[in-house]
């Protein structure tokens, strides 16, 4: 059985930190394991009523008219709304919503369709009634007349000449130059370094392949939920499950035509998000219903609604060409990437383009990245959005190059590994990064040095990159008389971030992590904080907590100086004890000083806001051993090891958890998951029964190696850890399956049917 290992490549010096790198119990542990934690479905404001959404049965259709009169007349129905209930809006207003980017009209239309429906499941109307059954019955009484239009189901289909247009007024934006004719291609961007033609001409080996991937869902266990009360004074309160309280507040306010200060969003505990909970879905509808009926309204999505109506990540078509010399140096790379944006522009093809060749020094490069609208729900972010598709394609070609050159796949990657100063596809030079260290950690791992024996077995490796994010964050720390502190922050807790943030404050103040009481506050109570995504929270909110703690420290040092009648520069705080530097008898612990605050002056509150920059980017690598059953095509994972650069692991257990979780999702994406659509654009597997997510029963323990190449822009060296581990598994598995079964697969998922067919084709 594989043992869990946690190796640290650049461990802090002995005694450098008291708290950083330890493993305290997370602050929300007891509530989470006893069921006391309050999620969106647990909130019951007085008088709350259930809401339901009527959704389009068609993937593409014009709405000719909507008649809600019979639904409104049904006894027990309190209100019905359509897009006509939105106030009029300014054209072309854009909203930055964390990991999403919408025009206001697109956002409104996605919440409640106005003139067209663009995917099966597109919301058309909302109903609130005295109970669920009457609300359901009312949906059936709403009459909608559609003019059904032919749907576009894939990016390649949408790009063909004569393809049905989703938006007749959309033109292709080629970096500020608009196409003459309307198109389903919303944007076409390019990256170019050197001269790729010359680079390929100088290569001894060139490999070019095409790849196809399907949309996959984030698969969070907790569905979207929104409980909203529109008070008679015009103030709106939203309780919901969200990764972006301020983004969703701002979007909800914009859609409703309200100032942001009239909307208060209370983020409940979140049962998974993975990037899929940055957009409003039910919130504005529940708000409109609440305004009409005068009661709080709750809308909770079913699993089928989640699959049919919320953003999966993009399906894609990717063509990759790479060339290398016989000495194993990459000379050129080229990629053509067309990603499905769903109903509205905004796929993660841009991020995918930055990540596709990111682990390598590629002197000559050309990437074309196309964002293509199709009749599916608008794509949303999913854990390193865009990068997994891209890495599957590029790492498969890298593996084939290494094989044709007769080189060990890790050695080939090491020979070309990106370092500080290597130019990314967009031309920006990398700062200090840990790509080489991650690959070296994999090469040194016992897994890689253990031969894999037995029939139908193979080993694959792959590398991956995610740029991570920063952004604005705020933190307030209040000192209590018992020596504890309250820490208020605005980042919903995913994966234990309230604890990783608290630990950073604890380190500055020299107090135990348990003495810091973190709380995630609502949008009225805390300063603006950008959402929990982009692997940014431990980085940006940790930075804010660090600064707020420094503010507390300064104030308490000043208080100590007053108390001891010495200049402030003669007072230090070391390991939780305030001392006077020239009189060792003058010392007080943090708790003792805290006890004296109210008798010596005002309460002490520390504040900080940051616009965290320099997230540094993170690399991960994966080794996977598989056994392929040639009769059924089933792929069994025998062993899997992931190495990832965390910069500095604040709480190693939670870093390991993120690495394992991301890897598992990457494996499931590679081997099992897909949104399966029929020709009419209906998803055929819209429940967890048929949308097969791999579970703990399908996988062995994932071994983790935490590599630490500190990020120089963060006080503790943090790099985001939440996403990058999802990137390499698909490429590693493709290579492992090749070595086990002799077939190189060019599509995801590599499910048993696909593998079996490929083996039969080879035979």
């Amino acid at each position, binding site marked *: 059985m594989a043992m869990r290992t946690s190796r640290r490549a650049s461990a802090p010096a002995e005694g450098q930190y008291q708290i950083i790198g330890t493993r305290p119990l997370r602050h929300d542990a007891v509530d989470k394991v006893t069921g006391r934690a309050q999620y969106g479905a647990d909130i019951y404001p007085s008088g709350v009523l259930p809401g339901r959404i009527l959704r389009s049965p068609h993937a593409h259709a014009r709405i000719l008219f909507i008649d809600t009169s019979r639904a409104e007349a049904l006894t027990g129905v309190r209100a019905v709304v359509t897009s006509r209930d939105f106030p009029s809006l300014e054209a072309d207003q*854009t909203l*930055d*919503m*964390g*990991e*999403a*980017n919408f025009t206001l009209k697109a956002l409104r239309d996605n919440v409640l369709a106005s003139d067209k429906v663009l995917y099966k499941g597109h919301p058309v109307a909302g109903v609130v009634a005295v109970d669920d059954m009457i609300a359901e019955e009312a949906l059936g009484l709403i009459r909608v007349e559609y003019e059904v239009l032919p749907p576009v189901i894939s990016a390649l289909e949408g790009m063909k000449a004569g393809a049905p247009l989703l938006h007749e007024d959309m033109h292709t*934006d*080629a*970096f*500020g*130059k608009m196409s003459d004719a309307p198109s389903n291609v919303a*944007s*076409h*961007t*390019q*990256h*170019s370094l050197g001269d790729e033609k010359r680079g390929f001409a100088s290569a001894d080996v060139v490999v070019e392949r095409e790849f196809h991937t399907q949309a996959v869902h984030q698969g969070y266990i907790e569905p979207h939920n929104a409980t909203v009360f529109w008070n008679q004074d015009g103030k709106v309160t939203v309780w919901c499950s969200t990764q972006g309280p301020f983004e969703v507040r701002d979007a909800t306010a914009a859609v409703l035509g309200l100032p942001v200060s009239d909307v208060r969003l209370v983020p409940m505990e979140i049962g998974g998000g993975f990037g899929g909970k940055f957009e409003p879905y039910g919130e504005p509808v529940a708000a409109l219903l609440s305004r009409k009926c005068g009661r709080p309204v709750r809308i909770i999505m079913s699993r089928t609604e989640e699959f049919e109506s919320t953003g999966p990540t993009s399906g894609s078509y990717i063509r990759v060409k790479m060339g290398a010399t016989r000495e194993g140096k990459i000379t050129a790379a080229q990629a053509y990437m067309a990603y499905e944006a769903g109903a509205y522009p905004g796929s*993660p093809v*841009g*991020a995918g*383009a*930055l990540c596709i060749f990111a682990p390598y020094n590629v002197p000559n490069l*050309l990437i074309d*990245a196309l964002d293509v609208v199709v009749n599916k729900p608008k794509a949303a*972010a999913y854990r390193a*959005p865009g990068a997994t598709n891209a890495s599957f394609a590029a790492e498969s070609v890298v593996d084939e190059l290494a094989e044709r050159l007769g080189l060990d796949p890790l050695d080939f990657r090491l020979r070309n590994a990106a370092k500080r100063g290597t130019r990314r596809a*967009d*031309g*920006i*030079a990398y*700062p200090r990064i840990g790509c080489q260290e991650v690959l070296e950690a994999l090469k040194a791992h016992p897994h890689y040095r253990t031969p894999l024996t037995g029939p139908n077995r193979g080993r694959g490796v792959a590398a991956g990159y995610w*740029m*991570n*994010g*920063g*952004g604005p964050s705020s933190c307030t720390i209040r000192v209590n008389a018992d020596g504890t502190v309250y820490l208020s922050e605005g980042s919903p807790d995913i994966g234990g971030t309230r604890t990783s943030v608290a630990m950073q404050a604890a380190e500055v103040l020299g107090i135990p992590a348990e003495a810091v009481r973190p709380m995630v506050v609502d949008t009225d109570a805390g300063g603006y904080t*950008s959402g929990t995504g*982009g692997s940014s929270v431990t980085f940006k909110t940790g930075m804010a907590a660090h600064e707020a703690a420094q503010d507390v420290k300064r104030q308490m040092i000043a208080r100590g100086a007053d108390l001891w009648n010495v200049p402030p520069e003669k007072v230090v705080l070391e390991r939780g004890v305030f001392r006077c530097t020239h009189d060792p008898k003058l010392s007080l612990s943090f708790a003792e000083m805290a006890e004296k605050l109210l008798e010596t002056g005002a309460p002490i509150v520390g504040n900080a806001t940051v*616009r965290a*920059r*320099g997230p540094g980017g993170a690399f991960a690598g994966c080794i996977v051993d598989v056994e392929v059953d040639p009769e059924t095509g089933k792929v069994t994972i025998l062993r899997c090891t992931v190495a990832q650069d965390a910069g500095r692991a604040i709480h190693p257990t939670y870093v390991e958890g993120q690495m394992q979780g991301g890897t598992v999702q990457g494996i499931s994406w590679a081997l099992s998951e897909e949104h399966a659509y029929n020709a009419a654009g209906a998803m055929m597997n819209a429940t967890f029964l048929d949308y097969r997510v791999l579970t703990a029963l399908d996988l062995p323990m994932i071994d983790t190696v935490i590599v630490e190449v500190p990020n120089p822009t963060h006080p503790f060296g943090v790099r985001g850890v939440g996403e990058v581990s999802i990137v390499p598994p698909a490429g590693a598995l493709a290579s492992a399956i090749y070595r086990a079964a002799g077939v190189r697969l060019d599509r995801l998922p590599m499910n048993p049917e696909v593998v079996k067919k490929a083996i039969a084709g080879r035979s």
Partner: protein
Amino acid sequence: MALVYIPPQMRGLTGGQARVKASGRNVAEVVEDLERVYPGIRERLVEGVRIRRGISVAVDGEVTPLGLQERVGEESEVHFLPAIGGGRF
């Protein structure tokens, strides 16, 4: 003078050059200097008083939320990039 990396789709405006020098204390002034030498560039990069939607600007390796207001040093590198996730990354 700052070194400005020209996106591939705009190199037709710079005679094919991928990198050009431009002066300015901030991105707005750099764009104006570019426009003087390569007319048409401003329209591709700027909409009203802001960087065009869908475009980010990075100075010295960091995508900046300040857009045209970001300060530029004598030795700075300036990149105009496709925006990702609303320009956050």
